[in-house]
């Protein structure tokens, strides 16, 4: 029990430290911190559904983009403290509409279907914007970087708590059972369709709000960018690097990825992407349990 206390205390101190960052850090460091928090929040939310259920979603870019779009549409219409949660709800609504048909198919069908649906939504938004005669939208007077950082920190912490709680709740156990064998899980009374839909919707809320915050950061909305499938693929890469279904996994994966991208992106974007691809291949082949899984296997036995 004492160990759990220690962990909780360490988490609180870490969160407090992050929250104090805008007071001391310059805009460059804060920008990196913001993107780090963004990837953690997205990957934790993704892991809550895909990591636990084994249904790999390549559609989370759609939730991110939908959140960004709703925030942009509500800009100067409603106050921001309302617009961001509404963006999250809109993403959840979208997930509900998509999840109901999509979750009926399994395995590779689900993976490519989510990718297809998210691309479909991207092109629908592009056509809508073109039909409205809008060629990108500019937001003027967005909140400062410090404010966005604190809001993103709150979302990140929330995403971790959600994953932690769901994992230890009946929902998480049911999802894990579905991942191992969906037919067997249903036979012992797991209501698979309902659990999957619930988890899918839950895992869309935070990405929606993250999308809203990030569009305030970039101040410019362009559907090709906001709905880019790269977002989905990056989330999956982070989850694979970290090891996908426990809280520290996505955290570690995101740190690794953001660190690498800061070191290489500006100087040699192609080399960064090549290394990213090579890491992905290497991890799938040699470390399929991810960094956290590997660490647990190496140190776990000694610690207990």
């Amino acid at each position, binding site marked *: 029990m004492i160990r759990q206390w220690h962990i909780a205390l360490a988490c609180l101190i870490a969160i407090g430290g992050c929250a104090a960052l805008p007071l001391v850090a310059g805009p460059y460091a804060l920008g990196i911190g913001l993107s780090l928090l963004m990837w953690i929040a997205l990957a934790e939310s993704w892991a809550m559904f895909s990591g636990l259920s*084994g249904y*790999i979603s390549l559609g989370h870019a759609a939730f991110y983009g939908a959140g960004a779009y709703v925030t942009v549409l509500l800009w100067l219409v409603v106050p921001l403290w309302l617009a961001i949660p509404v963006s999250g709800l809109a993403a959840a609504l979208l997930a509900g509409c998509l999840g109901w*048909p*999509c979750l*009926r*198919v*399994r*395995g*590779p*069908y689900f*993976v*490519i*279907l989510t990718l*297809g*649906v998210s*691309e*479909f939504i991207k*092109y*629908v938004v*592009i*056509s809508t914007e*073109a039909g409205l005669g809008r060629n990108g939208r500019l937001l003027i007077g967005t909140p400062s970087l410090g404010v966005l950082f604190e809001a993103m920190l709150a979302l990140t912490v929330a995403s971790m708590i959600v994953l932690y709680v769901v994992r230890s709740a009946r929902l998480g156990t049911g999802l894990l059972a579905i991942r191992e064998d969906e037919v067997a899980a249903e036979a012992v009374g797991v209501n698979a369709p309902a659990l999957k839909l619930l988890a899918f919707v839950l895992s869309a809320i935070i990405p929606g709000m993250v999308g809203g915050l990030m569009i305030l950061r970039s101040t410019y909305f362009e559907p090709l960018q906001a709905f880019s499938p790269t977002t989905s*693929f990056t989330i*999956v*890469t982070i989850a*694979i690097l970290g090891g996908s279904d426990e809280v520290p996994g996505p955290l570690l994966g995101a740190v690794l990825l953001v660190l690498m991208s800061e070191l290489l992106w500006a100087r040699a*974007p*192609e*080399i960064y*992407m*090549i290394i*990213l*691809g*090579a*890491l*992905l*291949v290497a991890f*799938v*082949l040699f470390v*399929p349990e991810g960094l956290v899984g590997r660490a647990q296997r190496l140190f776990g036995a000694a610690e207990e």
Partner: protein
Amino acid sequence: MNLSILLSGQLLASVLVLASLYALVAIGLNLVYGTMRLLNVAHGELVMLGGYVAYWGFVRFGISPLLSALIAMALAALAGALIYIAVIRRLFRSVRLLQRVESNSLLLFFGISIIVQNAAALAFTANNRGYQYLDNVVAIGDARVAANRLAALAIAATACFACVLFFRYARSGMAMRAIIQHRDAAALVGIDVDRINVQVFALGFALAALAGALISTTQEISPFMGFPFTVSGFVIIILGGLGNLTGSIFGAVVLAAVEVYGVALISPSFRSILVYGVFIAVLLLRPQGLLGRSIRAR
């Protein structure tokens, strides 16, 4: 808008050209999925590389693209065999990886696709490149078609027909179909699955590279041109049925017709919406494909 354009030979020619190229891409993708359950999202990259081989062959050495298509095919076949031996065998050796082979292969090929795209961008720059080859216009009936598109159609259609014959009559072609039907049973009756897998990779990659070389004569190429072809390829093999090789040709015709007539009737900006719309509708309504009868779950 004039509805008579629907009946024109012009659009029909466009459909045939696009369909024959799509079929080449899709047959390879379907072979690799059907025999090994691998989702090769790097398939479009082979199209891109085939295009570059033809481009450099023509611009640097003055080799006809139709000739360098053969070189591209040989190189791609080699690359396919190497990837199978170096990477895929390792994937098959681990029980844990094999349990979720589709998802793992998707991530694996996605990694490979990023590597190839960016290596190509480093080596060839990200600029679009094009060259003029056989660009005189030929009139057939009321249709006016560039000669390079006609050549692409003729070669691609011949290659597809050769594939159909190969799957029907050649020993290794029949072995490939047997593995698609049931891998374990195929191994039991004495088919060397591992050797056929190497051939599948070589053949699939070579067909994609051939498509790429032909495409480079008709449109500009760039390091990032592959992804749309991968997507179209997946739409087609789902339309035609996963693992159904001749179904892929049918799927290619359907998708090409939807694209060409859709763009002509509505507007070019709706092309992607149409492709993805067809894709989603088929996956949800008939995941076994338009021609398929039963679906093997997972």
